[in-house]
């Protein structure tokens, strides 16, 4: 099923709907009369009642002179034209109004600076017996997605910084360079035939012959910008498929929103930005995908909605078996939960269920099939998934590299933590974002908490000095 939703009135109506179930009630806006069938639970409150239901205490107004009447919502209403609902990107959308515990949860602030190399707690990260984990490179604040050039240069995107970094490796000596500055949320990086592709919030660009320009401040050339500009889930993962096309997602523009047909999907296009097409739908926010080396099917992680409960929904691992499949968001999550707001009138059976549940609010991000030969044979062609770790959960979950083992038919056999220790005592010591195969069979992990990249190897250690 491919949905086509007209953006305007429906989206506006949807926004009003969120307001009705969100933290505090809003006054009706004229758009609400245009709202489509409202899920049952949200009768519009009378306007005057709205601010009174706000759970957070009003700021003191004691500074007002005694003569001034205490501002009541009724008095204020005429002076305040229909105030906005929560912006669609607000992490408060869907938060239960009456829960003190919920009110203590918020996205974990992202450290602005990289951790100094000697302060990165690599020794706290635990790998299975026989595996080693070491610091590969540091000093890259908010290090996110990884890509590798044919000359061995590792490119690292970022989300709240404006930079793409390059880690060069000459004769075993690694050096971190700022490849490009001044970008806007350049989370996605991909490399093919000498060219680096960069996905920013609302455009995709390229740098040809990038290995010759590492210190030359190259200027990326835009190849595609037919993209929305939403901040929420606007950062992109970028990868190149076996069909030699660039794949990227356009996330759902908020926690739980009915969106137009430009959002909530995977797209692919040619290397020159032509031929863009939408290939999968009902995707809330995927920040990692890769192709099964045997079946060539695309697998992708998808992050479930916030605020449904402490333990649900799980993030998803999905598999695309046909173009145009719909994975359910925002109508159905994890294949079997009809969304309490948008699921009415739908059945989860309309959508493609995930092949694995990745844990509640786990933030399953980057994932790659392991194609090297350094690790034991049982890891070959299995999936490693970076679980960034939750914020929307009192007892945090994730903060590890998970191993997903597959059956011959591509279905999932098992899921287990592989590298742990990033989350200890409900605090993050690191937050894995992406994983990547290296030519020698080792695997790199990026960590946007410490601004670092780690290397996982197997066998007796040949200690590689970190930076």
């Amino acid at each position, binding site marked *: 099923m491919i949905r086509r939703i007209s953006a305007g009135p429906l989206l506006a109506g949807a926004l009003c709907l969120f307001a009705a179930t969100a*933290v505090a009630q809003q006054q009706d806006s004229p758009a609400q009369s245009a709202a489509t069938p409202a899920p049952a639970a949200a009768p519009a409150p009378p306007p005057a009642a709205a601010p009174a239901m706000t759970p*957070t205490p009003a*700021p003191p107004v004691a500074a*007002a002179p005694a003569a*001034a009447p205490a501002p009541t919502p009724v008095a204020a*209403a005429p002076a305040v034209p229909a*105030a906005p609902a929560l912006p669609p990107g607000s992490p408060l959308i869907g938060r239960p109004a009456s829960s003190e515990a919920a*009110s203590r949860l918020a996205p974990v602030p992202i450290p602005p600076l990289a951790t100094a190399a000697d302060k990165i707690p690599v020794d706290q990260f635990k790998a299975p017996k026989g595996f080693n984990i070491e610091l590969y490179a540091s000093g890259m604040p908010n290090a996110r997605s990884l890509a590798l050039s044919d000359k061995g240069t590792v490119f690292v995107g970022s989300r709240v910084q404006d930079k793409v970094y390059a880690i060069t490796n000459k004769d075993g000596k690694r050096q971190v360079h700022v490849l490009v500055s001044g970008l806007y949320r350049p989370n996605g990086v991909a490399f093919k035939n000498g060219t680096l592709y960069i996905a920013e919030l609302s455009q995709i660009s390229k740098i040809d012959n990038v290995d010759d320009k590492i210190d030359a401040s190259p200027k990326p050339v835009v190849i595609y910008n037919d993209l929305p500009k939403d901040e929420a889930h606007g950062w992109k993962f970028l990868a190149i498929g076996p069909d030699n096309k660039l794949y990227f997602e356009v996330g759902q523009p908020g926690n739980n929103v009915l969106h137009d047909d430009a959002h909530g999907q995977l797209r692919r296009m040619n290397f020159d930005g032509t031929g863009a097409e939408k290939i999968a739908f009902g995707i809330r926010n995927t920040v990692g995908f890769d192709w099964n080396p045997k079946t060539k099917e695309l697998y992708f992680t998808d992050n479930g909605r916030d605020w449904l409960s402490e333990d649900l929904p799980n993030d998803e691992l999905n598999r695309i078996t046909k173009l145009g499949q719909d994975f359910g968001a925002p109508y159905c999550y994890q294949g079997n939960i009809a969304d309490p707001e948008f699921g009415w009138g739908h059945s989860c059976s309309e959508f493609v269920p995930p092949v694995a549940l990745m844990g509640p609010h786990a933030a399953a991000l980057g994932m790659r099939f392991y194609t090297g030969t350094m690790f034991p044979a049982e890891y070959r062609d299995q999936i490693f998934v970076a679980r960034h770790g939750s914020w929307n959960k009192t007892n945090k979950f994730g903060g590890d590299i998970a191993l997903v083992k597959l059956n011959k038919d591509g279905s999932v056999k098992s899921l287990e933590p592989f590298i742990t220790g990033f989350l200890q005592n409900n605090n993050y010591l690191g937050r894995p974002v992406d994983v990547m195969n290296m030519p020698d069979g080792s695997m790199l992990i990026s960590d946007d908490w410490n601004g670092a990249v780690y290397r996982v190897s197997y066998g007796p250690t040949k200690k590689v000095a970190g930076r």
Partner: protein
Amino acid sequence: MRRIVLALTLGCCAALPASAQTVQERLPTCLACHGENGQSQNAGVPSLGGQQAFYVTVQLLMFRERMRVAEPMNDMAKGLSDDDLRSFADIISKVPPPQPTEAPTDADRVARAVALIQQNRCNVCHLPSFAGQQNVPRIADQREEYLVKALRGYKDNSRHGYDGTMADVVAPITDAQILDLAYYIARVK
């Protein structure tokens, strides 16, 4: 040319480019404009007293990397090390917070601002005291015209946030509402 602009912008202060001075040695330069007691006396220059250390670190980083362009701060932050940023942030967070310079006298504006604050949940992230937390700044008793400037900057996207939160929040807020919010928040007790 740039130096002239800088000198004009600074007005009261001597323009000191980044140098080998320690953070402690440089601090008087900062506070000469931003206010020695944490309270700025200069239009357009924010009070920094009691500001959240996390937020200060983020802003100094953004000045240094020119992710936020606001001279003379980009010049001031040029060449600072990560440790310098942390030290400045730590010191500034311990300077006493600014105090309200006067009580709000316009009850209508207060009423409108209070309603706006509730409707836009400013008090969820900035806290009911407006003291802020971590990457969310203290805004209580900030200079009124600076609050206006900051909100307008987020609204017209001339000021990029570290994340997209404020751009999202102010998108539907009108300029008249910005003036009311700034009026009240600059005077909260």
